[in-house]
């Protein structure tokens, strides 16, 4: 079953467009939404949540249509964002008092447990929290009403490495319940190397791929070798290539083809998600 079904979602701005994105986010798994800054990840998430109205296309969350059933949907969804839009002048306690009555399954004990775990004082005002602390607050609020789907927009961007790891462990705990689903947008791809089951790559407002992480790693390959191995035909087969005076490094989307083309004359390595993102975003040849 799919936790999120997106069909032909389109939104045009004067200088930017999210174009015809269709996507199924599988229930019970962590999906990482990756892409460079400003390519449409947040716009896509905002369209899912009804913050931005799409020009065309449809969104179904947990089997219900957005925005027709948005109230029921949002009872079952937790949202964590690096943009902290809470009322800045309120304390954490007041923020909780404001938010909790909206949720049928609000768990006060659980919320305070998270506050203790994240070392957040309920007396502290939102405006006095650092960016990382605001994300922690957002996470505590998002996890305290038995959400089946956690939608996270750049949640790790303001966090120190120690809490980032703690958060990833926390998300792994959330996934102990097989009904739970997480979609997690980030440009820090190392987080997803660790926890994601599926990877969705958005670039320039378009879906590049949406595949199981293992399949992505099996499919793509980094080729490193001498520039003499390159000619125009071979260059055109690369998704992205970086050439230096002494050699080249490029990304190919077909491991078998890479082995046929280069055999033992070049080094073939498994790319990281960051490599895939870098070479896809850069495209063509980059000369260093």
């Amino acid at each position, binding site marked *: 079953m799919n936790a999120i079904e997106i069909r032909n979602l389109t939104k045009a701005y004067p200088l930017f467009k999210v174009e015809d994105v269709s996507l199924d986010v599988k229930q019970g798994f962590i999906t990482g939404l990756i892409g460079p800054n400003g390519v449409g990840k947040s716009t896509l998430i905002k369209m899912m949540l009804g*913050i*931005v109205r799409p020009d065309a296309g449809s969104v179904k969350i947990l089997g219900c249509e957005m925005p027709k059933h*948005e109230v029921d949907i949002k009872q079952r969804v937790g949202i964590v964002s690096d*943009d902290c*839009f809470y009322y800045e002048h309120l304390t954490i306690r007041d923020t909780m008092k*404001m938010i909790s*009555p*909206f*949720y049928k399954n609000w768990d006060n004990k659980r919320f305070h447990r998270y506050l203790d775990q994240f070392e957040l004082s309920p007396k502290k005002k939102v405006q006095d929290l650092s960016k990382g602390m605001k994300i922690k607050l957002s996470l505590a609020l998002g996890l305290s009403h038995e959400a089946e789907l956690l939608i996270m927009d750049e949640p790790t961007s303001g966090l120190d490495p120690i809490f980032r790891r703690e958060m990833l462990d926390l998300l792994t705990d959330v996934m102990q319940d097989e009904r739970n689903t997480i979609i997690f947008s980030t440009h820090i791809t190392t987080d997803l190397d660790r926890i994601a089951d599926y990877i969705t790559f958005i670039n320039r407002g378009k879906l590049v791929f949406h595949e199981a992480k293992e399949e992505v790693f099996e499919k793509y390959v980094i080729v490193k070798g001498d520039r003499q191995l390159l000619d125009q035909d071979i260059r055109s087969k690369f998704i992205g290539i970086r050439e230096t005076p002494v050699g080249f490094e490029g990304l190919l989307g077909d491991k078998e083809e890479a082995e046929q083309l280069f055999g033992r004359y070049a080094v073939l390595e498994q790319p990281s998600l960051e490599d895939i993102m870098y070479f896809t975003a850069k495209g063509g040849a980059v000369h260093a």
Partner: protein
Amino acid sequence: MLNLLRKDFIALKSSLWTIILYLAVFSFTFIPNAEMSIYFVGIYTAFGAIILTTMIDIKNHNHQFLITLPINRKQIVQAKYITAILYTILAVVASYGIHWLAKLAFPQLDKPDYSLWVILISIGIVLVLIAVYMPLFYTLSKKGAGIINAIFLIALIVLAQPAAKLIQIINEQDVVSTQTWLLVPAGVLLLFIASYFLTISLFTRKDL
């Protein structure tokens, strides 16, 4: 709906004293100096409170947060209209009460006897202001809403005396027929209802 009203109360908890300050400042300014002070105090305080309650939601782009809660945009607008009506009634009644007290405590001010019509006329005027203000507020961005607030405040100050004069003439010369007295409230109510649906429609389509 109750949760949204409660949300407004929590968000404004620390600013509620501002409304009392408005009431005090407008009372001290207008009661000794303006014949139509009962209208000024009620209308200005009500509108000041309404601006306070709308602006609190856009200070930190809070609509983006509100829309992540299990509510829809129609409910957000609905709650704000209800809050605006509540503030209007409270401010107008408070103005009536203060003038009643002022008349008792300071007979030298020579304030007239006020009928309940004063309350209804004041409420009607604020409802018209809300009907114009709300669609603009929910359509414009944070910056635009700030400009609209400034325009409304200037308009309220500039138009206060002419409007007061008009009300006075109507009261004194009995130039308005009974039919008009019935049509005006109906018109105000219709305008308010139309504004409510227009605001919902505009806010529902808006990207936050």
